[in-house]
Structure formats: C-alpha cells, structure tokens
C-alpha cells in the first residue's frame, strides 16, 4: 500500500459533488502536486487529508493507518495555509514552538529545535520579531517552519506561494524544493499555477470538476497529455482535427486536413483505444512547430519578443484560430511556412 492512499473519496457540499470518487496514491518522500483550476476540488481534497473535512465516502490512509475518524490534532500531517495563519499575538519563535508543547522539551531543547528550524528556512535571528512585522515571504517561511518543526509524515501546502510577487515566488520555489530534499518529508502541494507544479513536483495529479484527469511526471504531462483538458491546462498547445486512415503496430496514418496526410508513430496515439476511421485531435506544442520554406503557408499576425526565442501567432488559410509557434522568424506581417514534425504530433480522442 502506498504511503498516502486515497480510495474512492467523495465529498459533496449541498448536494453538489466537489470531490468525486477520487483515487490517489503518493509514495514516501515524494513532492506531489494537485493541480487544477479554482473550484476543481483540490483544496477540499487537501482539507480532507488534514482532517478539516470528512469524506462522505471512501477512505484516506497515511502510512497504513486509516485516517477517516482521526481528528486533525491527532493526524501525522501538518499544513501550510494559504493565508499562512500566523498567530498574530505570538512572535516568530512562539509561532514555531506552538506545536511542540506536548513534547515537554526543556527550555534549551526547545530553543535548539526552533533555532535549527529558523536556520532551515533562513530566518536566523528573527525569532523575536512580532508577527505583524514580517514581510509576505517571511510569513511564508514562518508558516513552513511551524509545520515542519513537528516533523510530520506528510506536509500539506495550500497554494503556499500564491500570495507572493513573481520574483519572490520564483526564489521560494527553488528554496521549497531544496528544503523538501533536505528534510525528506513527503510534500503534497495544491496549486492552480501549472508552472509552479511543473517546476516543483516529482509527480502531478491534474484535477478538474472533482475528478483526477491524469497523474504523471511533469515531463509526461507536458509531452503526453492524456486528454484535451490536460493538454490545454499545461502550457500552450495547438489542436488540429484529423481522421484515422490506417493503424499498424508502429505507425498511424491520419488525414489531418490542412496538414495533409500525416504518418506518425502509433505510440503517439497513446492508450486511448483509437481505431481506424475515428475522429481525433492532433496536438502539438508551439516550440515543436518549425519555420521552414516547404511547409504550410501562413502569415505572422503577432510577434512577442521573449529573449532567446520569440512567440508568434501564425494565421494559416482555412483555419480561424492562429497557430502558436515559438522560435525565430520575421516581424508581424511576414509570410512564413510551418512544418509540423509528425513525431511531435500527439493524438487524443476527440470530444465529439
């Protein structure tokens, strides 16, 4: 059995299922992210693991123990709240020491333990600072230290970087990952920010409307999304309608309309049970589309300079939506030709 094992967990509020028969298995020491748009049920799932909500059905177990009837204060989990929930009447030291009362440590032991944690989150010497004198980044560190100092089996993080500005967020991402490696605790992060999930996690579960759509490593999610929603949610992607002509063990030939007849590795169709004559979607990332003279003709309708590479919208005849391309080409209005390398095309079942 996995370290954190969630089996058929369902939770409804006022008759509306918010989390719908979710199965999830997380291994010890993993940095795992629950990724999804707001309202997809990810926070409710997190709160059920912490014990603040009770599942209507299904079981949650941590390290082999079923948690369903264990109150929050007896669970081996600790949480970093989205608002950080720093106790405003206590200073930094007392905030971090808050959860250590029951250990009945001596004064010196307590100080040593809190100081070590202050060092881990790089807040050395700030123990005496009052809660209302902390910056956003410092509050985040205190919240993290307060949870980690209890040495939980599982650390839950609810949009922990959401309240920080972009620059600080990027610094904290690197640091969060380093801290997780150092302490070795299993981290479960909830976020709506795909970049955050991709850069931090070992594995990601993409959630939508109370369901988990796909569980995979960041690379797999990006390169092999298993449905249109996941492909759309993770990064940018172009879709083309196509019809399957022929499938063999190694290749698949599809009629991709504007792109002509394309032969791609059949592995790119995934395990969706796609068969001959099916209507499918071909998906390709902007950076995999290439500018080349002998491709599909088009015109650049917008060009955004992003440093080493630029981002383009290319209008091609017979298609209303522009194609997103990342690379190097001329300014807006230039005539270009696009090549869609078959090995980069991913086949997904079409919704209709």
């Amino acid at each position, binding site marked *: 059995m996995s370290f954190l094992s969630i089996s058929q967990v369902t939770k409804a509020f006022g008759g509306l299922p918010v989390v719908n028969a979710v199965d999830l298995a997380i291994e010890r020491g993993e940095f795992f992210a629950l990724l999804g748009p707001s309202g997809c049920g990810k926070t409710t799932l997190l709160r059920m693991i*912490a*014990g*603040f909500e009770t599942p209507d059905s299904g079981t949650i177990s941590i390290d082999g123990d079923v948690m369903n009837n264990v*109150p*929050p*204060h*007896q669970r081996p*989990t*600790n*949480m970093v*709240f989205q*608002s*950080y*929930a*720093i*106790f*405003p*009447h206590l200073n930094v030291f007392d905030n971090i020491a*808050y*959860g250590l*009362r*029951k250990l009945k440590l001596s004064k010196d032991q307590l100080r040593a333990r809190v100081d070590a944690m202050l060092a881990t989150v790089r807040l050395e010497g700030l123990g005496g600072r009052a809660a*209302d004198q902390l910056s956003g980044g410092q509050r985040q560190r205190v919240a993290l230290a*307060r*949870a980690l100092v*209890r040495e939980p089996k599982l650390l839950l993080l609810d949009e922990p970087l959401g*309240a920080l500005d972009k620059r600080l967020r990027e610094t904290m991402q690197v640091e969060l990952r380093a801290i997780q490696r150092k302490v070795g605790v299993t981290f479960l992060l909830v976020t709506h920010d795909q970049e955050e999930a991709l850069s931090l996690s070992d594995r990601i579960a993409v959630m939508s409307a109370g369901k988990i759509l796909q569980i995979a490593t960041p690379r797999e999610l990006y390169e092999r999304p298993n449905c249109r929603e996941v492909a759309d949610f993770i990064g940018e992607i172009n879709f083309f309608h196509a019809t399957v002509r022929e499938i063999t063990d190694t290749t698949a030939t599809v009629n991709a309309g504007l792109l002509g007849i394309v032969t791609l590795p059949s592995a790119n169709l995934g395990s969706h049970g796609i068969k001959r004559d099916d209507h499918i979607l071909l998906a390709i990332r902007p950076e995999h589309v290439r500018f080349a003279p002998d491709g599909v003709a088009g015109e650049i309708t917008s060009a955004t300079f992003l440093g080493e590479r630029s981002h383009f919208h290319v209008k091609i005849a017979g298609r209303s939506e522009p194609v997103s391309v990342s690379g190097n080409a001329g300014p807006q209005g230039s005539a270009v030709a696009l090549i869609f390398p078959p090995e980069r095309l991913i086949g997904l079942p079409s919704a209709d």
Partner: protein
Amino acid sequence: MKNRALFIYALGYLAFLYVPVLFLPIFSFNNSQFIAFPLTGFTTRWYAGLGADAAMQHALGNSLKVGLVTALLSTMLGLTAAKAVTQYRLRGAAAMLGFISLPLFIPDIVLGISLLLLLGLLNLPLSLASVVVGHMLVCVPFSITVLIARFEGFDRNLEEASADLGESGWMTFWRVTAPLMMPGILASLLLTFITSFDEFLVAYFLSGTEATLPIYIWGQLRFPERLPTVLALGAIILTVSVALVIAAEMLRNLGVKKPMVGA
C-alpha cells in the same frame, strides 16, 4: 449661519447632558445639607460620613459581588453564543439570536415581576443569586453584541492551524481564541459589570433583604439629611465610571492597533 445654529445646538445638547451630572460633585463638597445656591462653603465631611456608613458599605459590597458574578457569567455565555453564531453554519441562528436579545426590549419592570412570580412558584428564596440571574438576562445580549463584532474579524484559519499543530479544541481556545478575543472579552466584562452595577428595577424585585447599592441609595432619599452623603457617593461612582469608560476605550484602541486577522 447654519454652522452657528448647529454649534449652539451641539453646545446646548452637551450642557443638557452634563450640567445636571456636574451638580453632584459640586454639592457633595458644599457645607450645607440643603441643596440650594448660593454655596455655603467647602467640606469633605459628607465623604468622611461614607467611610463610617456600614449599611452603605454592605450594599456596595453586594453590588460589587453581583456585578462581578454577572459580568463573568454573562461574558462566558456571550462568548460561546457569539462564537457559535459567527463561526458555524447553524440552522435558525438568526432566530436564536433574536430570542436571546429579546430581554433587551422587554421593560425591566415586566422582567422583574415575571422573575419574581417564577421564583415564588418554584418556592425559591430571594437572594443576591436571584439578582444575578435577573441581571444576566439583561446583560447577555450586550455581551453577545460586543463579542459578535469582534468575532467577525476573526480568521478561522487560526483555529484550524492550532488544531493542525496538535491542540484540541479546549487548548486552542486558551492559546489562540481567548488571547485574540481579549479586548472584546474585557469590553464585555466592563459593559456587563456597569450594567449590573447600575441596575435598579430588576434588583428591587429580586433582592429580598439584601440591598444592592442603587436600592440603598433609593432608600436613603427618604431622609433629607442624608442627601449630601448620597451626592458624595454619586460623585465617587461617577468618577469611577468615567475612569472605567476611558479604560475600555483605551483597550478598544489597543485592539485596533494590532490587527487580528492572520493575513
């Protein structure tokens, strides 16, 4: 022109409020037992008289006892009710709150008579305890009102964070809720104490043989020669009340300066 009229109105209003009250200290130092101008001379003998008045001191003791017990019990009940109403999804919370606040709108004399009848029917003796019960009916709504306002700015995540960090409901209350609610709790204690200390009608019906201070003062008014002493007593109560109000206001500001939300 308009401003001037408003200014005069405001001045008149303030005079109407405070001039009568000022007579108390003025005449309490006047060397005559008749309350009339012109003043005849300065004396502190009415205050000295208070020091030797055992009946007054007994009544004062009763009022302090009743006030303290009423303030503590009302604030405890108010705290739990305010917490329940603001923090839990309760069915019928609004109706319940309405019922709790109803005694505010029932005339005290009706409240006093009904409680007197009830105690009679139950064969319970009148005592300071029955006064406390009556005063709680009057004070709990005040307490709830003060505390609800305080709870509305309270971040529930703080209590969840405490539970998450291993504390049970009771310890969470002591370590997080109570300290953060302290300005509200103190304001409620002061308000309910003063309300009880002042209260005459309900106490008059329910006190039996043990007089509270307002009842004692009411009794003294029958004796004209005791009037200056009553004024001296009134002046002391006035001073203490003003000091308490200033203290309560400073506490409130203290609470404002330190924002209590976690974010």
